[in-house]
């Protein structure tokens, strides 16, 4: 028996098909985590398309050096809304969407710890999003960038700015409520016998993510409240004319927004750690190393914020402190990246769309990560801060990282969520167009930034026209690349071939129930017959384990099942449900 069969026979799925829901449920205040998960995933994708259209409007303006498409005022609103939507209405809640759908299934729970709170958290998002977008209709959209630095944000477009503050406050509250739910659920609701060292890595990633959300998002809320008072009540916290200090806002903003970039990437690190082993048919390499590196990243992420402020006036020694802490984040992230490469290495890769996107994630995220380390070097950052080099960096990590990670997740869990398979051919077309479009759009921006093109400008030096033209074409390709996916997803949802319970022969518990899962997920409490990543255990005897530096006799040196890094099925704990308490 392979491991998958073993796990499946220990958890026989229900005979009849459960989980049929009326379409109306998806538009209602439903407390089922799966409904909420789908609500999140679909809503955020719609916002992605809106944010993407705004991005392509930005790129259309930048096709030529003059302002021939929109006025400079509108241009500023475009990229402000683009970034706000992409970050607060797409990446952050999309992570929450996956977490909602997957966490209870992965740990064998019936639902989240606080189902109603969960629904409340979701239902804050659509109004906040509509509010934000309505500012376009009011004709006074926020236009001080997604960072909204005062004093500028206090003197341009006041109505839009107030709307922006309201909307971001709502979204922040929603994400805090979500984080509380994830933490309590993972911590308290695992099936008996699942220790933290047997839970899927996605759960580790969500612990790390939720911890940062809980600690940093409120500080942004504080900053926005003060900013709101300056804007509406005439106080001068951040207004220098009244003695306030704009730099304090920057500190508060980045105290949230740097950790937020890890809120935006850690969930997808988690997804990738799930997807790679399944399709490589090989255990994830260094389970514990990956798990702990998530925690390390979330801790380090809290003490690096001022690297966004290297030119705005912090003392030299502080600049050095933030430079070094920032660079150290490359170490835990490197652990992850190398462990993923080692997972893939020597496996039997099923190169389907999910796997391609996951490997694409690793490949492009590394580029963004490395340019991040360059940015952390103060003397170099002084040159490229607020230029297209930063824009390139942030899109490599956010698009090449988070967005590819989300797509990998879509392709991987679509069969579970809908019960039907996606079309592989169109999936591969989507992948190819996305990878080409992404590099075409964002790779040249590195050069733009270093040569002297600053960001957030609607007019630029004509000498940059050629490169900008390439970027714009790339962004059109990205728009085109989305259509195969949208059509594929809708078509497959209705007519795709049936998926069965476990189409990928995966081992984690979400595959041990029907697709789509029953209303309360499992008939009986599921049991762990095998670890989450024990692929290939049945051929442990005949496969040659060939890993440099390894010695199978010592757990500390072993690479095979004895390895100390394995998701450890400690029988002592497995027998004892008390550790959940």
């Amino acid at each position: 028996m392979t491991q998958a069969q073993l796990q499946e026979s220990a958890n026989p799925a229900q005979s009849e098909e459960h989980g049929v829901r009326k379409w109306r449920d998806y538009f209602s205040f439903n407390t089922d985590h799966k409904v909420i998960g789908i609500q999140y995933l679909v809503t955020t994708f719609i916002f992605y398309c809106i944010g993407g259209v705004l991005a392509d409007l930005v790129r259309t303006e930048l096709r030529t050096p003059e302002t021939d498409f929109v006025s400079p005022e509108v241009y500023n609103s475009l990229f402000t809304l683009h970034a706000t939507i992409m970050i607060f209405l797409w990446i952050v809640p999309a992570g929450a969407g996956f977490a909602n759908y997957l966490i209870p299934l992965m740990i064998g729970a019936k639902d989240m710890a606080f189902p109603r709170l969960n629904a409340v958290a979701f239902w804050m998002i659509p109004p906040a999003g509509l509010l934000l977008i309505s500012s376009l209709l009011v004709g006074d959209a926020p236009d001080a960038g997604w960072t909204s630095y005062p004093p500028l944000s206090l003197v341009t477009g006041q109505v839009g700015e107030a709307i922006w503050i309201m909307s971001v406050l709502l979204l922040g509250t929603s994400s805090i409520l979500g984080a509380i739910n994830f933490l309590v659920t993972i911590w308290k609701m695992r099936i008996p016998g699942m220790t933290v060292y047997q839970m899927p890595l996605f759960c580790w990633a969500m612990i790390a993510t939720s911890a940062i959300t809980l600690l940093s998002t409120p500080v942004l809320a504080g900053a926005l409240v003060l900013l709101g008072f300056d804007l509406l009540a005439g106080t001068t916290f951040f207004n220098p004319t009244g003695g306030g200090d704009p730099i304090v806002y920057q500190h508060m903003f980045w105290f949230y927004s740097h950790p937020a970039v890890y809120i935006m990437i850690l969930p997808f690190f988690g997804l990738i750690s799930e997807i790679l082993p399944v399709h490589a048919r090989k255990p994830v390499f260094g389970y514990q190393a990956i798990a702990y590196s998530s925690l390390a990243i979330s801790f380090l992420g809290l003490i690096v914020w001022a690297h966004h402020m290297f030119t705005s006036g912090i003392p030299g020694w502080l600049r050095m402190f933030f430079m070094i802490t920032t660079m150290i984040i490359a170490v835990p992230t490197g652990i992850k990246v190398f462990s993923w490469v080692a997972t893939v290495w020597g496996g039997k890769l099923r190169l389907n769309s999910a796997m391609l996107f996951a490997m694409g994630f690793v490949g492009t995220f590394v580029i963004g990560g490395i340019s991040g380390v360059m940015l952390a070097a103060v003397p170099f950052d002084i040159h490229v801060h607020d230029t297209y080099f930063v824009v390139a960096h942030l899109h490599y990590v956010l698009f090449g990282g988070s967005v590819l990670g989300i797509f990998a997740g879509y392709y991987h869990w679509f069969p579970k969520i809908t019960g039907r398979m996606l079309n592989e051919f169109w999936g591969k077309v989507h992948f190819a167009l996305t990878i080409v479009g992404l590099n075409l759009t964002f790779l040249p921006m590195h050069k733009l930034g270093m040569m002297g093109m600053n960001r957030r400008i609607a007019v630029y030096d004509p000498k940059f026209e050629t490169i900008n033209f390439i970027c714009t074409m790339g962004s059109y390709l990205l728009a085109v690349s989305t259509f195969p996916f949208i059509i594929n997803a809708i078509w497959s949802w209705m007519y795709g071939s049936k998926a069965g319970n476990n189409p990928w022969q995966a081992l984690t518990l979400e595959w041990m129930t029907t697709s789509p899962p029953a209303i309360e997920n499992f008939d009986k409490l599921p049991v762990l017959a095998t670890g989450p990543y024990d692929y290939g255990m049945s051929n442990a005897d005949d496969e040659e384990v060939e890993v440099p530096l390894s010695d199978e006799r010592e757990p500390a040196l072993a690479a095979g099942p004895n390895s100390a890094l394995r998701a450890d099925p400690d029988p002592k704990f497995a027998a004892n449900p008390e550790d959940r308490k």
Partner: protein
Amino acid sequence: MQSQTIDPAKTALNYHHTEAEAHHEEHPDHRITGLIMFLVAEGMIFFGMFGAYLAFRSVLPSWPPEGTPELELLLPGVNTIILISSSFVIHNADTAIKKNDVPRMRTWLAITAAMGAIFLAGQLYEYSNLEFGLTTNLFASAFYVLTGFHGLHVFIGLVAILAVLWRSRVSGHYSNEKHFGVEAAEIYWHFVDVVWIVLFGLLYIL
């Protein structure tokens, strides 16, 4: 390269098949854990604002800015004592309900609520007698926003206590087994108290 020497205990597919135990309770109650996490988040809002306050303090040449009218210390001092003592009072309510003594619990809660109300009233009285307004200067703004934001929390805590009082009319709503509401109100009240102590130190004493 190593040949295989694999510990059979680990290769064998011998995860413990713990027979699925029934959950102890049908709906496990994790609300206290959730509340504590929520208060961590709340604490971070205050942390952020306190940080900002200290930063403002360090960037202005003199603090509070010259010409800021004096702050009276007597009333806020008394108020502080009332609020801090109310934390002990509400703890008695918790002790009472754990002994299943609902009437006593109601009494203690009522006293807490009264003390909270006095605090709020005192605060409003202080506001109305201050010689500076919200936008007088940076200190004044910080003063009103910080105390106001805290006052809002006191108000929410007060509403929570009153809600518990209201619900406890029905006999058996709270018991020594089941008293989430009482406990939650107490934890929240302690939180509000701790924040006030820091706030008082920052605004009035430092």
